[in-house]
């Protein structure tokens, strides 16, 4: 585990995911004077309060100016500092897209972007503040590592990993509390390596972010109710994607469902399908995610309405389990 800072389940039942980020970045900044936190009028919303208490001079607030925030961050990185740039993911990915592309990724600077209020976790704020295309944007950016932690503890792991490794990172976290998935940081988090949350051989659900807990719940329910063995992979790193885990799932279960709080175009589902298509291996496949702009509501209500909650995953699993393509398929003839 990078960084050496420890968070536990109690931390994340008491504080929101972004607050765990706030604690993690504070620990790092106390240790390393080269780290700076940059924000665009969202120091409070992105939970930089602890940092403001201990090293206010290293919190740079540029006002409501995301393009400037990225340019300033790139300049500071170029001058040897390590900026953690935090803002709402809708604006870090879209409003400052050119700066992210050119100043951060093209220059390949050592800057870390903490994109909060991810997916539809801003709920009632609506589509102006939802981020359902940010993975499509950031996944296409060369040099950028893209991580979607599933809960607070994984957020701490991702932040520590980003700090420990050189180069630009985009870490996408939710507003408010995430359902607790991990009770310890020592579960083998490694950038680019999926984590198996639930074992299974009948079908694999590959999830990221807030959908991982939902997939775990669905798997537990289906085991009891339908006797199905559902493998659940927490694909926390969207880029570089864990090709090995995906191909293993194809070979072992031959049925895959992806689930994400993001558009079905360009995000986790697309990344998984690209790996499968390149492999030449056939597989029953379904992508769960946003088909259009999301409705307004509480995050959990939106997830339910869109079918990316446990109920939606259960329905999708039952549907995909009915696919009987295997009988007329000859794996020996595969390209």
């Amino acid at each position, binding site marked *: 585990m990078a960084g050496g800072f420890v968070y536990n389940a109690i931390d994340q039942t008491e504080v929101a995911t972004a607050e765990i980020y706030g604690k993690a970045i504070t620990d790092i900044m106390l240790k390393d004077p080269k780290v700076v936190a940059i924000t665009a009028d969202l120091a409070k919303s992105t939970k930089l309060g602890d940092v403001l208490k201990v090293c206010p001079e290293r919190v740079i607030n540029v006002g409501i100016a995301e393009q400037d925030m990225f*340019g300033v961050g790139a300049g500071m990185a170029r001058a040897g500092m390590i900026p953690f740039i935090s803002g709402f993911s809708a604006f870090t990915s879209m409003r400052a897209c050119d700066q992210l592309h050119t100043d951060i990724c093209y*220059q390949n600077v050592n800057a870390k972007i903490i994109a909060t209020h991810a997916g539809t976790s801003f709920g009632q704020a609506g589509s102006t503040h939802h981020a359902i295309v940010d993975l499509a944007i950031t996944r296409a950016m060369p040099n950028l590592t893209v991580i979607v932690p599933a809960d607070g503890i994984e957020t701490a792991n991702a932040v520590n990993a980003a700090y420990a490794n050189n180069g630009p990172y985009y870490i996408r976290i939710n507003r408010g509390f995430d359902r607790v998935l991990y009770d310890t940081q020592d579960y083998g988090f490694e950038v680019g390596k999926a984590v198996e949350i639930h074992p299974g051989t009948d079908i694999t659900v590959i999830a990221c972010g807030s959908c991982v807990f939902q997939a775990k719940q669905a798997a537990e329910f289906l085991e009891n109710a339908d006797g199905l063995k559902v493998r659940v992979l927490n694909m926390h790193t969207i880029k570089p994607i864990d090709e090995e885990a995906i191909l293993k799932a194809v070979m072992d279960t031959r049925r895959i469902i992806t689930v994400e709080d993001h558009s079905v175009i360009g995000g986790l589902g697309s990344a998984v399908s690209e790996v499968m298509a390149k492999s030449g291996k056939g597989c029953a496949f379904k992508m769960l995610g946003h088909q259009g702009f999301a409705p307004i509501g509480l995050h959990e209500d939106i997830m339910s309405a869109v079918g990316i909650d446990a109920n939606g995953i259960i329905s999708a699993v039952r549907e995909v389990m009915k696919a009987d393509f295997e009988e007329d398929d000859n794996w020996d003839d595969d390209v």
Partner: protein
Amino acid sequence: MANLSKQEWTALENKAYELRKMCMQTTMWAGSGHIGGGLSVMDLLTVLYYKYLNIKVDEPQWEDRDRFILSKGHAAIAYAPVLCDKGFNDPEMLKTFNLSGSKMGMHLDSNKIVGVDASTGSLGHGVSIAAGTALAARLQNKDYLTYVVTGDGELGEGSNWEGFMTINHYELSNCIVFIDRNHCMIDGPTEEVMKLEPVADKMRAFGFNTICVDGNNIGELCDAIDVAIARSKEKCAPTCILMDTLKGAGIKSVAGDYHCHYMALDDDTFTKYSKELEEDYRNRLARVEKEGK
């Protein structure tokens, strides 16, 4: 009367003339290039790189070096010759400028061309990056200065004004902003495409101590930079040097004409423009005699 000695001024004019010729030659090798905006900013590049910038050619990433950011990144056709002439890069590279497979493209890549502090090209990025390097200097108690130059048409990008606000808010007097006011953009004169005036008032309203100079007069430029450097010693309102320039400065038949933004040269025009550059150089030397100390 400028503060610059005639001797130093003459040396800088010699260098500016040499670099203008290299810019023209590079354009010939490349087949075409952004001559207009390159020549308008060439005098600034000359005084910064041959008089002011505290940099080490043998240690290009020296952490205490002054930074220079060419926000108007398309002026690379003028900047690349400077970086080669200084010794950061092999001058032979200029023969590959803009050619397929070259490391030296139309807009310089800071990870490929030695001495480039920021990869620019997409307009409206340099000011914020400069604010970042200047803020880093303050946080790390370093004395280096950051110099950034934007075009005037470039100021249409709103991101510049975000960057100006940051430089003003954090009183980054260690960040010196230049505006290359050559009055032209691709589609025509700036005031016809999108009104920009009053530029000086706008910069003052954004908190900058704004000095207006003839940006193609090396003596005036140096005087203004001296003032900006003196102010940089303490945290205070930043300085903007608004440079009134001519697009294509030095080549009489195109100077001031927006059509020279991007040009191809053939043997005849190259010969003609070379003669005009020489004539301009002689006129500049006469000015040194008149205005130098």
